[in-house]
């Protein structure tokens, strides 16, 4: 297990390094210059040129790359010329917001997706299964930003149950540490997390239904029933555990979806996270922020996949046995 973990960690670091390198060169080689605000009056060329020199963008790209890596090795992610602050500070402000949003969406995704999938499997072929399946298909087919706008219109503008974007009520919550503002934060989190979570849940439910249907026709499930176990116990203890394996794979894959989905959702709901930060940085050609965001996002995705693999090993004794036997094969 330890050897497997070390191998996976080394591979993960290599992946992150490759992502950073590719991002660095792609963003620097892309058309467009890092000068001036996006969508407003362009800066005079002499001001742009001086700014380019100040940030060292006039030097050859390999030199800039080596300099960037050297700084990164010392924990310095550089200075954003668009935000006028260290990249690490900007990311530190944004990461917790994206992380919380992704976590909340993940909870909704899997809690709702598993419940619906199990329900569908148990009621396979009946009205409930068909209805839930069709609704899930509909939600899964919706572009996430469009669903966000619909929920915003419905729950914020018409019903006024939830706020129309933002992370806090700026009038009532100047201080985030008060208990009131904690609740206010959750209130603001609900719609964006629901939007992101619903789309994920629709997909999860389809996977879970298929996995459960596969499992409940197995002999050991029939044996459990024959032993007189209650149906709930048969489903939730015996069948579900085995039906969870494909879902754990899905869990690992959900991370990239959540981070890319967050880019759109953060814009629709004015949620100040990594997605918004990265998109603005791309438009402004704010190279250090784009590369820094890619570094962190890839790290989180790789970690998510690693966690999923570890969970797989926990959930499936066969993998543990293979691991002890000197097998390996992380991607079971």
């Amino acid at each position, binding site marked *: 297990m330890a050897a497997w973990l070390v191998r996976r960690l080394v591979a993960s670091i290599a992946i992150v390094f490759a992502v950073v390198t590719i991002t660095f060169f792609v963003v620097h080689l892309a058309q467009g210059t890092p000068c001036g605000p996006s969508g407003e009056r362009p800066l005079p060329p002499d*001001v742009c040129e001086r700014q380019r020199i100040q940030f060292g963008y006039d030097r050859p790209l390999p030199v800039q790359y080596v300099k960037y890596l050297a700084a990164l090795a010392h924990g310095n992610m550089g200075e954003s010329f668009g935000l006028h602050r260290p990249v690490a500070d900007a990311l530190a402000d944004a990461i917790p917001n994206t992380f919380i949003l992704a976590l909340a969406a993940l909870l909704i995704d899997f809690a709702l997706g598993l419940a619906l999938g199990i329900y569908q499997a148990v009621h396979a072929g009946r009205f409930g299964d068909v209805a839930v399946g069709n609704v899930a298909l509909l939600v899964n087919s919706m572009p996430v930003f469009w669903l966000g706008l619909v929920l915003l219109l419905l729950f914020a503008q018409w019903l006024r149950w939830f706020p129309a974007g933002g992370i806090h009520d*700026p009038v009532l919550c100047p201080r985030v540490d008060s208990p*009131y503002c904690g609740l206010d934060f*959750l209130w603001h989190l609900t719609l964006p997390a629901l939007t992101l979570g619903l789309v994920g849940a629709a997909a999860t439910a389809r996977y879970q239904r298929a996995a459960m249907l596969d499992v409940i026709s197995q002999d050991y499930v029939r044996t459990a029933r024959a032993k007189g176990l209650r149906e709930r116990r048969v489903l939730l203890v015996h069948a579900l555990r085995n039906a969870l394996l494909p879902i754990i794979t899905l869990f690992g894959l959900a991370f990239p979806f959540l981070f890319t989905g967050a880019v759109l959702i953060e814009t*629709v709901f004015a949620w100040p996270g990594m997605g918004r930060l990265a998109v603005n940085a791309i438009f402004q050609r704010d190279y250090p922020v784009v590369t820094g965001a890619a570094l962190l996002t890839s790290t989180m995705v790789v970690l998510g996949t690693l966690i999923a693999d570890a969970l797989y090993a926990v959930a499936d004794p066969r993998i543990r046995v293979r691991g002890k036997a000197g097998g390996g094969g992380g991607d079971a």
Partner: protein
Amino acid sequence: MPTARPPIGPTLAALAGLILVAGCERPVGCTGEYCGTIVIASGGEPDILLPPVSEFAITRDVTDQLFLKLADLGASGNTIGDEDFQPQLAARWEWDAPTTLVFHLDPRARWHDGQPVTAADVAFTYDAYTDTLVNSSFRSSLRQVAAVTTRDSLTVVFRFRQRYPEMFYDAVYHLRVLPAHLLREVPRDQWRSTAFGRAPVGDGPYRFVAWKAGESIELAADSTFFLGRPHLRRVIWRFTPDQQVAVTQLIAGDADAVEVLVSPDNVQRARADTALTTYPYKGSAYGYVGFNLVTPGDTTKPHRLFGDRDLRRALLMATDRERLLRNVFGEFAKVPPGPLSQLWWIWDPEIRELPYDSGQAARLLTRTGWTDSDGDGIRDKDGRPLAFRLLLPTTSAIRKQYARLLQEQFRIAGVDVQLDEVDFSVFNERARAGRFDALLNVWNTDPTPSSGFPQTWTPAGFGRSNYGRYNNPDVDRLVDQAVASAANRDQARRAWRGAVETLNRDAPGIFLFATANVAAVHKRIADVTIRPDSWLALLRTWRIPADRLTDRDRVER
């Protein structure tokens, strides 16, 4: 044995409690005339709250509340001379000589940390704005100021290189005075990342309270402000990158004001809400199709198509600009009579321009040899089709809409237009380098045409903002004449009109729209006055009468 039901009741109760608690407001305190809170939904976020190093309009909106100018534009918007300017930091001023302007600072002015504002602060500010290490984009606006010196702690002297009508405007309009005692020690090449820029100390009607990155900026009224206590106690900008969402916030009551509603749909949404008032005001932008008059990559050769004046004139006459405008903006813009924003005093609908006349356009194209010889619907000459590419940024929904409508109008005229939609950074790069046939551009203008017009339509703007390299010595002469004679309004107006009409005859572009803005503000806010060049310039006079205060207005921080 039946199992227990899942605890749905407590979950629902907790959720209801959450909504209830979050929906309720905390106990309230403030009463009286100075309790209002305004929340402004803003599409952008400042990059830094240090005026010399930011170009964002939103930065200007915020820093105008924090930092004072020596004097500011009056309601008339007149930039000529000094009679229409309103005192701010300077209580009064006089001209010692034709090129020497003396400001006497108001002795009551204080920085928010209690230090007095002095003449040394003004001299320091001028020095910083013109320092290449600070690299301010406003540096060029101060090129006619030779020196700024102090006479005593409250007297500062501006010396100009020459006499001209807008000397006073140049001295005061872009210069927001900065605290020397807090910035002197900061190395000039580090101003763009100084901590002061994220927590500034100013001398304006509002003091800085907090900036939560990506979320909001909050200012609080300086109750001791020497020009009069602001009525609104708190001003909060909440950053909302999507314009539709900003309007939704406004309608949902999560925000009190939006600067520009942009689309007719949004104006209708705001007008349908009885809690909101809309305020139309003159826009500072104009949009146009600019033709590249030279070959991309070789400025010595004329463009294969647009080097021909007749072809440009024909394309202009083939464009039904009124119809395009109605489609995109409805009533919220005007077709400009040249490269003019509605904000400029030289705006004059009587200025002569080429009319929309598709018949005349077709005849002109035929006369110049562009006919549809192969019957494919596209005119051609010497075996080459009449086709070009139109460059535009993907970030502008308005321009994208215009581009498609133009494409169709040109197609009917037998002209094939392909769209080059690129992101804003690429658009700027290609425009500046002249790598385009034609572009769909928008200029946001200063309150005066004296600097903006020459930079975009005379050789002074080559390599800068005159992307198409339009050059007509007659226009240059008339512009020089107009700028120099600005003190005499009638004379200047005639010269400007002559310059614009000469330019219109050359058709270096098709001038499509000049925006008219509409702001929306919550009805409880009274005395809303909007100055078109800077919509929040008079914010300190806005107020919420005591009988219209809501609990949110009264909340103590």
